């Protein structure tokens, strides 16, 4: 699998570390429903069979966190962007 790092170019996936779902957002810890919201943030996943937006860390490259869009059925990498710039 190859990942097109926006800084380093197309690189072997071995250079990256996977974290997971990039669609979840850290909730407001002061909100009244924070306990439930954090449970959902940390534990619950859509886990789609299809395009998946996910965090990868380019540890053997630029050391940036990326949001990679990848199809979980085919492993086709559909795109990659810096986490901060992906609307994250």
């Amino acid at each position: 699998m190859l990942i097109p790092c926006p800084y380093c170019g197309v690189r072997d996936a071995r250079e990256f570390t996977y974290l997971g779902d990039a669609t979840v957002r850290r909730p407001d810890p002061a909100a009244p429903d924070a306990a439930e919201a954090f449970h959902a943030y940390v534990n619950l996943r859509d886990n789609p069979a299809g395009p998946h937006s996910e965090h990868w860390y380019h540890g053997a490259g630029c050391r940036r966190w990326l949001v990679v869009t990848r199809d979980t059925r085919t492993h086709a990498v559909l795109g990659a962007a810096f986490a901060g710039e992906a609307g994250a």
Partner: protein
Amino acid sequence: MSRLPSGGLIDRTQSLAFSFDGRSYAGHSGDTLASALLANGVRLVGRSFKYHRPRGIVTAGAHEPNALVEMRTGARREPNTRATTQELYASLEAASQNRWPSPAFDLMSANRGAGRFLGAGFYYKPSMGPAGGWERLYEPLIRHAAGLGRASALHDPDAYETAFAHCDVLVIGAGPAGLMAARAAGRAGARVILADGDLRLGGSLLSRRAVIGDAPAGAFAAGILAELAAMPDVRLMPRTTIFGAYDGGTYGALERVADHLPAPLPFTPRQRAWTINARRTVLATGALDRPIVFPGNDRPGVMSAVALTAYAVRYGVAAGATAAVFSAHDDAVAAALEAAEAGVRIAAIVDVRAAVHPVLAGRAKAAGIRLIQGEVIGTRGKTLSAITVRTPSGIETLAVDTLGVSGGLTPDLGLACHLGGRPVYDAARATFLPGPLPPGMNAAGAVVGRFGLAESLADGQAAGLAAAADAGFSAPPPALPRIDEAGFAAPSRSAPHSAESATAFWHVAAKGTAFVDQQNDVTAKDIAIAHAEGFRAVELMKRYTTLGMATDQGKTSSLAGLAMMAELTGLSLPETGTTTFRPPAVPVAIGALAGHHRGADFRPVRPTPTHGWAKAQGAVFVETGLWLRAQYFPRPGESGWRQSVDREVNATRAGVGLVDASTFGKIDLQGPDVGTLLDRVYINTFSTLPVGKARYGVMLREDGFVLDDGTTGRLADARYIMTTTTANAAKVYQHLAFCLDVLWPELDVTLASVTEQWAQISISGPHARAVLAQVVDGQDVSDAALPFMGAIEATVLGGIGARIFRLSFAGELGYEIAVPADAGTVLVEALMAAGRDFGITPYGTEALGVMRIEKGHVSGNELNGQTTAADLGLGRMASKRKDHIGRVMSERPALADPDRPMLVGVKPVDPAAVLRAGAHFLKIGAPAATAHDEGYLTSACHSPTLGHAIGLGFLKHGAKRHGERVRAFDPVRGADIEVEVCAPAFIDPQGERQRG
């Protein structure tokens, strides 16, 4: 069964002596072991898996099911090598396998008599008389009888390599289509790799007698290869098998660098595993001819018709004295005629069809070969001596010692299916063709059913051009070579292949044992059993009968089995489907895939900056992750590690000791928002930390459990240096980067990992300050100027930039002095010199561990990812005035449960007793059962300071139980003792020493 007088791509001037089963033979350079054995009349080469039936050579390729041999001897003994691909070399030694004592006389062939009871499903049913009969009786018997070759059980003495390659167009297979594809892509300017498992590139052009243009096929291939070799961006990779298609245009390949030699040459690997990244791929793996299932079809002497021809044309070997061919399609008939032209005596061609192509029929007649419409229904002889043929006019027996069989052509399409594509059935060609191809792959030639030579050449060229164009290299199509198909009536002209020339013919309906999978001894009857017992889905049939699970992965067997099941179920072949094709397409040595990652080179070593110095001091080292750290420094006369460690501890506590602490993770954080970031990742507050001070901090995962701990100092208003545990250095850096990139991109902080850039030496003990004072460049290190938890920048040893942190893991007056890594040895030597008068003692990780347990500092054993800050007694550090990662979830009921085991100290009631980490705590008198498990001992040591064993652990309600006795239950080490619970700090609980 002899060498033909002429022909073949062998060097008849070179005779190579070799041995098989201890007997000596000779072959030629260019032979495979199989061709050399056939040339010497060796027809019986092994025994089958289950019934130990005698078996001979069937194919001339990598899909050989029978001729698997043990190659070489000693530590290089290698089981299950295909004689059909093993290149002959001088003094080659090979042996048949799965026979005892010899392939000709095998005692285990008794299984054969029992065969009627050992059919499919036998394993699952004999349930089993007495309880445990399986384990005591059947299982060891089956296990003993199982398997093919014998591994050496010795460490493989050869080296392996892994390598990477990149190209625009990867062409897989160097037969007619592959050669044309590579040439077209190469001429267009693409970077091309042409890989083929064979030593000689050319594929079927080498083993058939076609004429292309005016040249024999072999010369045509040589011409293309010469052109390719001259192209700078084309890489020819013979002896290299592409074994797998992976994601993103990645292909796995195995290059057999030295398998054609007695042993690898010095400094070269035996094999090399390649990862090839290709923008486009042309699959040109060709087709295999497939067997026909008929009674007696496993008798040595029965082989593939194409192989019979290949042995004659390529190797100049007649596989037998008199052969017949049993065919169901015209290409097999043509192949038989070519074998005859090459000098093999072909007595008859038995074809199941009503008519073969009239031109072929005419050629057969001209060559004096009988053409019989019929079916082979039986064979005779220990090795083949006769076949029985059923014709419309009756039964006939033919005395032949060799039978070439071909029921049709099966594309070798595994690589097309590795990414999930399913083959599709082509009724016209009576075979499965590749379905949807992997991204970036084209396929050409016989693998997509274009079996004729002319169409294969054209198809290959078109695919090569298309692949190059897709990769951005366009070129006009070159003219195709001329193939005079109209003239194939003349000798040495290939027949055109048409869909109508084949018929779907899988098996002969006749009595007698007929094998579908020769290696695994799956018979036609086994298919019927699977059907009757409900194992009809192809995957169930495969698993129940083991059809297709042999080393050829069903290449010679699956399709016939599927077709026979389809006949029984009444379903069509497309409805029946195929089993899944998975990598590797051919078996690959495990050593090659591992490359050089074995032994001491399994993983890299991270030496600390003072490694060489410690080694010179006689240190014993210990693996700490990838690091090697000094474990202890034995001195002459010491009887064992304990004595050394006790000395190191005592010397440190009484005087001063020194340890290399460089392995702790170090992260340099700069920017106006570092304090804000640290407040959010640590449970305690760092934004208020004064410049020049350090603070111990605990960070949590978002799920509320402890992630890591360490000391972070503030060197300037906008600059902090964080220390992490050795184990979590990379993980914490990644976590901080996540916080900055993902959670709070608005924070202005820059991170740098500086673990490797700094050597960090810790000195501890009452004389530490006096030692430090001698290495600093005039810096005031008095208690007032550098108080406990002070963190300053200074220079040492005449201008070496340094950072000095006043802290101690050992619980003494202590300093950690960091200098650039290349100054680490200089610093440690200077500290040793400065401390000589105080008896400064280097210590290792063991003494460090003892002192931190005595002090009650938690470490990796306690920070095991399952503990909370409260479990560790650190809960009160958490600031209530701010949020931090993990705060919300650390308040979940199960994490806030007062019943959770929490950190305690323990000491044995019997002061002579030994404590070992891993013991569980039980109430005294309680049964030893999970329900009464109250916690466990995480760390334990002998405390030389106290003179007895001490330990740290987690115990339910531990904080309230100081003074209580509990059991430390350690049955795996035969220990069960009483311990007294105490506070987790055995020395200096008020911390007076470190503040001294």
